[in-house]
């Protein structure tokens, strides 16, 4: 089992496309950090007219925690595409290179083979997130320092600014990255599922990207009939659930409660829905892979 996993990871590490994701993430993060360091003007869009009523030290607002939040907000919509690059290649890549038949002649069950490939995709996804955490969180903390985090949020028709004190933030990031790992594993499971049916890698990768883009667009439409009937069924509606860890609860005096979350049941339910997606997609992948015809 361990040696099979090592082989899979070795194969992933030898593909140039594996590193496209790391380069893309590093490029985007560094560009955002450099842009904010040079010109923090974006903050004015978020602050709107708050500066008319309050004196706020904007240099404190743009700190490492805020930068990480901004970067995750931007990147976690694109990262599914990067995950698909590797997971979509898992089975179809073997078929394309003609090694799938050879692989399946070995005395290893098909369930084990696809399970190992899925596990390798998860490890790659977690590796990508760890890399993102190192750059977006820890490098930002080194460049911009640390302070309280301001979360700018539109909740229904209301806009809010939530302030989380700096000693109450790190656990939220750990939880958010763990949640993001589950969310991105759904994408890996989807890409793996599509990979089972293809003979080359481009098809499942492009199909996964298209599904993610279409579902993300629908998830962000604010049309009541879609909100009620379609959004709850789309996994993309739950990809941004990591933000729930930053929606701090407030008491009756409008003061944030340290260590709290506004709606933990909603985050927990989102996690269950994502885990159910993983189970269904991986289960379907196994089912179809076991019946896959490799003779014709």
């Amino acid at each position, binding site marked *: 089992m361990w040696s099979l996993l090592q082989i899979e990871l070795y194969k992933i590490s030898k593909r140039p496309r594996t590193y496209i994701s790391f380069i893309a993430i590093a490029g985007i993060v560094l560009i955002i950090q450099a842009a904010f360091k040079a010109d923090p003007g974006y903050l004015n869009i978020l602050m709107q007219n708050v500066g008319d*009523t309050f004196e706020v030290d904007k240099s404190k607002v743009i700190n490492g925690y805020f930068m990480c939040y901004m970067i995750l907000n931007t990147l976690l919509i694109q990262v599914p595409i990067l995950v698909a690059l590797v997971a979509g290649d898992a089975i179809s890549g073997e078929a394309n290179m003609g090694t799938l038949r050879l692989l399946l002649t070995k005395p290893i069950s098909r369930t084990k083979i696809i399970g190992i490939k899925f596990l390798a995709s998860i490890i790659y996804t977690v590796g990508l997130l760890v890399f993102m955490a190192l750059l977006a969180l820890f490098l930002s903390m080194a460049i911009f320092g640390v302070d309280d985090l301001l979360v700018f949020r539109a*909740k229904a028709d209301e806009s809010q600014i939530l302030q989380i004190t700096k000693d109450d933030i790190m656990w939220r990031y750990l939880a958010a990255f763990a949640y993001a790992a589950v969310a991105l594993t759904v994408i890996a499971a989807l890409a793996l599922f599509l990979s089972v049916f293809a003979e080359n890698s481009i098809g499942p990768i492009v199909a996964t990207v298209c599904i993610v883009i279409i579902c993300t667009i629908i998830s962000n439409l604010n049309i009541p009939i879609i909100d009620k009937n379609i959004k709850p069924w789309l996994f993309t509606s739950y990809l941004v659930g990591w933000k729930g860890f930053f929606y701090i609860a407030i008491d009756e005096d409008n003061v944030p409660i340290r260590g709290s979350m506004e709606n933990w049941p909603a985050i927990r339910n989102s996690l269950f829905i994502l885990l159910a997606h993983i189970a269904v997609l991986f289960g379907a992948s196994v089912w179809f892979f076991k019946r896959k015809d490799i003779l014709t």
Partner: protein
Amino acid sequence: MKKLLTVLFITSTISANAQTEINALLNKAKAKIESVNDYEAAGVMKTNVAFLKVPIAKVKIYFAKPNKLKVKSEKGISFIPKGAVSINLNNLTGNNKFTVIDAGTDKINGAVVRVAKLLPQDESSDVVLSTVFIDEVRNLILKAKTTTRDNGTYELEMTYGKYEAFGLPDKIVFSFNAKDYKLPKGITFDFDDGAAPAPASKDPLKGKKGRAEIVFKSYVINKGVNQAIFTSQ
């Protein structure tokens, strides 16, 4: 005719007396305030604005005559209301370039107070009108309302304790106009947790009025304040 003249004479005498009285009362209250050349106060500030969910902040307040005031948060990001400079009553009554009008009496927490309206003589002044409510017994300003040309109306309510001899309050409730806050749609990609939105507030001032409550723990009075504080961020 004689009777009419008598009535007019008595009325004008009473009015003049009342005017003298309110001037004297205001001067007594001012004398207390003006005995303070500078101070450094430590306290906690609770800001209450509909869109802003911020923790209670530990603040330091620095004042130096004639009208320098700085509110600084000890740690973290702070939202200091822009009109907070008026929490120092010296800024209100410090210059003598205003006309005092006796506006009768009113009640604050059951106690009768004298009301004086201060009209600035300088027509270009940002302050249009200030109304102060003075406790006649203790010679203290308990409440002040300031209407400005550009920044709306500020209201101060003071509670006094240990430092009332200096006219310095233990607690200030500062009300101010707060503009509504609206994020442009589609830039935050928020997580829809499915929770029903909060019911619309019946308060017509929701989103328009803000309150900051400062509770002072201690004052260091007339010991000098580093002037650099007033120019620092």
